[in-house]
């Protein structure tokens, strides 16, 4: 299928640059501000948007994204409200690809067929569900592909060459390479190792490869962008949300601006990368 994700990566390939993929948490720090952040992302330089679906028990996330999820849940975010946020975003942006990222239980409880129907209608292009490996493809991956929603898979340093074909089999849109063994926001990835890992994945797929986990600064983003088709930044952005809050944890006039400013810096890093032509 050709959707927004495929079109966006094709455009960027023609431009000869990598994509900046931003991760922010739906409902963080409150539903309204989170929508304002979402709407500000493309203008600030985000090429692909990952929107987190908050979950009480995010087993693969570090403290920054755990805290973002809790802020959202405490502010009353639900999966339904997350889909509402996507709808609100689509009213102002018809082109930027949007991928929902999270854990399976809230989707399972919402009901897979109903979720896929509503997500597609809201303008969701893809899903990243951390706790659904290929061994569980029947749960959501295969129904998603049937419903015309991309299923973006995580590949990790522990995914060896023997396993990669299974991981890539039903992946579409792009491949998200987790650059470290660890939780989100932990260590900075080594750009050299990342380059080699991306090359290894590229031997198995024509899909674009985006790299994430631990990218915080424009300089790191540039380094990673030299070896990959996309750079994912998450913990640093939700950290910017947190740092902008007032003493009671409420959004301030600075919240949206702080995120947009960091996105612009990261986009500058990504766009200044020297890409092999």
């Amino acid at each position, binding site marked *: 299928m050709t959707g927004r994700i495929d079109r966006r990566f094709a455009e960027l390939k023609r431009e000869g640059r990598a994509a900046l993929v931003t991760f922010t948490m739906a409902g963080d720090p409150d539903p309204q501000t989170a929508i304002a952040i979402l709407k500000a992302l493309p203008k600030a330089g985000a090429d692909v948007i990952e929107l987190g679906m908050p*979950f*009480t*028990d*995010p*087993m*693969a*996330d*570090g403290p920054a994204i*755990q805290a973002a999820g809790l802020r959202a*849940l405490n502010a009353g975010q*639900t*999966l*339904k409200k997350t889909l509402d946020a996507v709808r609100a975003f689509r009213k102002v942006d018809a082109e930027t690809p949007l991928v929902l990222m999270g*854990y*399976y*239980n*809230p*989707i*399972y*409880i*919402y009901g897979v067929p109903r979720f896929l129907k509503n997500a597609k209608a809201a303008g969701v292009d893809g899903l990243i569900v*951390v*706790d*659904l*490996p*290929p*061994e*569980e493809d029947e749960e959501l991956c295969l129904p998603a592909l049937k419903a015309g929603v991309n299923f973006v*898979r*995580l*590949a*990790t*340093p*522990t*995914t*060896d060459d023997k*396993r990669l074909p299974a*991981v890539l089999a039903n992946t579409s849109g792009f491949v998200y390479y*987790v650059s470290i*063994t*660890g*939780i989100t926001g*932990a260590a900075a990835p080594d750009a050299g190792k990342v380059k080699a890992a991306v090359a290894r994945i590229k031997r198995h797929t024509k899909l674009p490869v985006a790299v994430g986990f631990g990218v915080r600064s424009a300089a790191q983003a540039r380094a990673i962008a030299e070896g990959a088709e996309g750079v994912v930044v998450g913990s640093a952005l939700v950290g910017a949300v947190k740092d902008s809050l007032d003493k009671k944890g409420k959004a301030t006039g600075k919240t949206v601006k702080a995120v947009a400013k960091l996105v612009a810096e990261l986009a500058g890093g990504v766009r200044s990368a020297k890409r092999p032509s």
Partner: protein
Amino acid sequence: MTVRQQPNSFRTGPDERGHFGIYGGRFVAETLMPLILDLEKAYAEAKADPAFKREMDAHLKNYVGRPSPLYLAERLTAHFRGAKIYFKREDLNHTGAHKVNNVLGQIMLAKRMGKPRVIAETGAGMHGVATATMCAKFGLECVVFMGATDVGRQQPNVLRMRALGAEVRPVESGAKTLKDAMNEALRDWVTNVSNTFYCIGTVAGPHPYPMMVRDFQCVIGDETRVQMQEAEGRLPDSLLACIGGGSNAMGLFHPFLDERQIEIYGVEAAGHGLKSGQHAASVAGGRPGVLHGNRTYLLMDADGQIQEAHSISAGLDYPGIGPEHAWLADVGRIKFLSATDKEALAAFQLCSRLEGIIPALESCHALARLGDIAPKKPKDHLIVVNLSGRGDKDLDSVAHHLGGKL
């Protein structure tokens, strides 16, 4: 709960993908998936290796102190004027609970797989103590994740783990209990995949853990079968055990599942009462969902967010249950009951004073239901209660709850 047609055998699960009916599975991050497949392979090889079983049996005998006695609780039997009550004395194992049966197996497997570092989650601290113990014995590094709330209410076990050379890491996220400890252990595992073995303490988590932990705990039921034959010349009529994740219960129940005349009762923690919303009874008060690598009954809200459990017993304070229990609940083979904090405390006092055995608060949940079951049964009805652990660790907590009455 829908009761479906009963299968030919209740003991054939899981299927090759780790499913017990719709439950179980492998819902983990990709980083962990290759490890879980390695573990599955290593466990299958160990299981088929007679030397592994020989070594394990020797340690169970000489180090753990098995077989644990099957003890006729005469004064409790007289007290309830009904069924003949036996205790399976898992409290007499080295480290004071059934947990060690499973940990021995997993640590031997860790050693076999060449993993120098072991991590574990713990609630009451019994699994943590067992893991710290076996790591000391086998010379492995040990890190135990424990919710900060539990660190506070189970101090003696924290000190025991430290004395055994383990590092205890208090977990400050969520309600700071067992669920949060498990999240943190999984985060550590994702980070330290190459050298770390995750020793899960109950019959839950991604396949193959529910099956593997069950297999290691089945020694409880296997011994009970032999011991009851010796004592009474026949099999028991009823089995009774507490269920948090459900490893002590599964260990006792599983070898008897296909003897359909045997009544099997699992007792969940009803905390302040099922209606209060503050409990840990995931079958009675939850519904199927996905957490910590498996599909099972979970306590959650309408949006699929996991709710905090509550129980006076740290070992039962978890919003889920092992997937095989979930399936056995659906097919109706295990009858699920529950006991409140108050009922558990009353059972604690009764058992201590009538039998001279101070039971773990976890086991007290099973004991608490004896008062309903035993009196209604004839005197030749044989009931086995799994006395899964000793209560020394709970004395401070019990004293606190009972005020001056202890």
